[in-house]
C-alpha cells in the first residue's frame, strides 16, 4: 500500500479520534466526569444518521444536523437528570456513567436489534493522488472534521461561553465567584461533548458502512487512550494525541495488524504510569 494511502487513513483516524476525544475531555475538564457512555453517544449519532439518511432517504447534511442536535440534547438530559445530582460525588458519578454504558448500548441492542445495518456512502467517486486511490467521501470527512475542530477551538478561545468553560476547567470555585454559572456551563459542555460524539458517529457511519449497537465500545477505548496520552481536560492535547495515535495505528496496522491495539493499550498503561497527566494536561484535581 502506498505511503500516501497510509497517511490518508491516518488523517481520517485522527479526525475521528479528535472529534470523539475532544468531547470526552471537554466534559472531563469542565463537568468533572469521566463519561464512559461517551462511546454509546457516538453510536446513537450513527444510528440517527442511519435512520434519517439510509432509511428515510433524506439528504446527508440533514442527517448530520439531526444527529448533532438529538445526541447533544440527550447529553444535556443525562447531565441534568443524573450527573448534576451527583455533583462532587466522583465515585458515584463514575458508577452511574458505567451503568449508562449498559443502559444505552443495551437499549440500543433492544431497539435497533443487534444485527448490523449497512449504510451507503453519502457521495461516491475516487480521486488519485500520489499513487493512492482516495475516496472523495473520505476527503470530505477529513475536511469536515478539521473544520469542526477549528470551530471548536474558536469557540473555546474566542467566545464568552468558551471563556466561561476555560475558567471552570481551571478553577470552578473561582469561576463561580466571578459570576460564571457552573451548572449552565457544565450542561453546555456536556451538550457540546455529546454533540461532537454524535457528529462523529453520523459523519463516519457511511464511511465505515456499518452500524451496530456495540460500535461505541471500540471507539470508547480509543478515546480513553487519546485523552490519557493527551492529558485530561485538554482539547489541544486531545487533538495532538489523536494525531499521534491515528498515525501509529495506521502505520502500525499496515505492519503489525492485530497487535496494534495491544501496542496502543500498552502505550496508555505506560503513559499513565510515567506521566499521568499526559502531554498537555494539568494535574487533574479530583473532587471527592
Amino acid at each position: 500500500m502506498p505511503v500516501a494511502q497510509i497517511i490518508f487513513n491516518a488523517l481520517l483516524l485522527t479526525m475521528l479520534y479528535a472529534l470523539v476525544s475532544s468531547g470526552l475531555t471537554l466534559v472531563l475538564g469542565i463537568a468533572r466526569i469521566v463519561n464512559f457512555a461517551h462511546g454509546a453517544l457516538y453510536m446513537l449519532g450513527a444510528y440517527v444518521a442511519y435512520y434519517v439518511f439510509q432509511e428515510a432517504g433524506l439528504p446527508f447534511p440533514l442527517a448530520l444536523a439531526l444527529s448533532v442536535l438529538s445526541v447533544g440534547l440527550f447529553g444535556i438530559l443525562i447531565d441534568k437528570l443524573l450527573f448534576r445530582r451527583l455533583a462532587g460525588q466522583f465515585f458515584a458519578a463514575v458508577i452511574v456513567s458505567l451503568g449508562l454504558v449498559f443502559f444505552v448500548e443495551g437499549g440500543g441492542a433492544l431497539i435497533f436489534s443487534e444485527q448490523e445495518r449497512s449504510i451507503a456512502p453519502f457521495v461516491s467517486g475516487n480521486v488519485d493522488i500520489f499513487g493512492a486511490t482516495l475516496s472523495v467521501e473520505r476527503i470530505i470527512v477529513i475536511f469536515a472534521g478539521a473544520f469542526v475542530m477549528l470551530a471548536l477551538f474558536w469557540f473555546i478561545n474566542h467566545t464568552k461561553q468558551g471563556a466561561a468553560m476555560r475558567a471552570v476547567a481551571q478553577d470552578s470555585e473561582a469561576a463561580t465567584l466571578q459570576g460564571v454559572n457552573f451548572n449552565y456551563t457544565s450542561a453546555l459542555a456536556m451538550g457540546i461533548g455529546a454533540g461532537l460524539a454524535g457528529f462523529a458517529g453520523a459523519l463516519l457511519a457511511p464511511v465505515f458502512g456499518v452500524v451496530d449497537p456495540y460500535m461505541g465500545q471500540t471507539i470508547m477505548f480509543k478515546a480513553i487512550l487519546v485523552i490519557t496520552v493527551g492529558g485530561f481536560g485538554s482539547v489541544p492535547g486531545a487533538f495532538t494525541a489523536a494525531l499521534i495515535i491515528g498515525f501509529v495505528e495506521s502505520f502500525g496496522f499496515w505492519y503489525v495488524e492485530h497487535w496494534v491495539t495491544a501496542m496502543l493499550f500498552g502505550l496508555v498503561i505506560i503513559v499513565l504510569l510515567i506521566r499521568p497527566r499526559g502531554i498537555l494536561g494539568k494535574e487533574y484535581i479530583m473532587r471527592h
Partner: protein
Amino acid sequence: MQRKLTFIIFCLILLVLGPLLSNQPYWMHVVIICIYSSILAMSWLLILKIGHLSLAHAAFMGVGGIASALIVTKAGISFWLALPLSGLITAIIALILGFPLLRVKGIYFLIITFAFNELFVIIIRNWKFLGGYVGLIGVPRPNAIGAIDFSSKVHYYYLILFLAAVTVITLYRIYTSRIGRIFTSIGEDEDLARSIGIDVIRYKLIAFSIGCFFAGITGSFLVHYLNFAGAELFTTWQSLYIQIYAIVGGMVSVIGGPIVGAFSLILLTEFLDIPIKAQPLVYAAILILIIFFLRNGLISLPQRILAWRLRLLRLLERNIKHETA
C-alpha cells in the same frame, strides 16, 4: 439481629439441601451462576475497600481460567491441583501488576484496569496458544473422586458451594480481624493511614492479590464447568456485571451485600424471564436507581423500611396527640 441470623441459617439450609429437593439441571445451573458470581463480587469488593475500583476483575478470572485449562490439558495435571495453582498464578500476576498499578490514584487506576482488561481480551483472541478467537475447547471436567465424576450438575453445585464457603470464611476472618481494619482504613484515608505507620503499598498488594486469587479460582471452576475457556467470558462487560452485583447488593456489607446483589439480580432475570438482550438495560436501570435512592444497596432495605415505619408511627402519634389536645 435475631431475625438476621435466622434468615441466614434458613438460606444456608436451603442452599445446602436444595439439590436434594429438586435436581432440575436448569435451576442448579442458575444457582451455580449465582454462587460463583457472588464469589467474584465479594472478592471485587475487597479490592474496592482498599480504595481501588478495578475494572479488570474479569480479566483476572480469565488468567485463572486459562491457566487452569492449559495446566490440565497440556501438562496433564489433575484439576484438583490445577485449581489452587491457578489461583496462585493469578495472585502472583496480580502482585506483579499491582506493584506499579496500585500506586496510581483512583481515576487513573480505573482507566488502567479498564485498558488492561481490554488488552487481555485482545491478547487471548490473537494468540492461538491461549485460545485464539475461538477459545480453548474441550477443557475436561474435574477428575473424578470415587463416585463423584462430575457428570451431573449436582457435583459442580457442591464444588462451587464449597469454594464459596472457603471464600466467605476467609473474608470473614480478614474483615473481623486487625487485617481488615488496616485494609478499610487505607481505603478511607490513605494519608492518615500512612501517618500512623501503616505500610500502605504492602497492604494494598496483599488485599489485591487475595481478591484476584479468588477471581482466579473462580475462573478455574468456570472453565472446567463449561468445558470451555474463551475471551467472551472475561470481557470488560463481565467486569461491569461483577461491579453491579456488588453495588446493587450493597457495599456496606462486605460479604452479605455482594451475595444479595448477585442472587437478586440473577434470580430476578430468571423469574421475570427477562430476555438476555434486555438484561444490561434492566441491570443498568436498577443500578442507577440504587445509586440515587438506596445508596447502601438492597441489603440496607430492611433497615430503611424500619426507619420509614418509625417515622410514620411518630407522625401518626403526633397527629393523634393533636386530636386529643
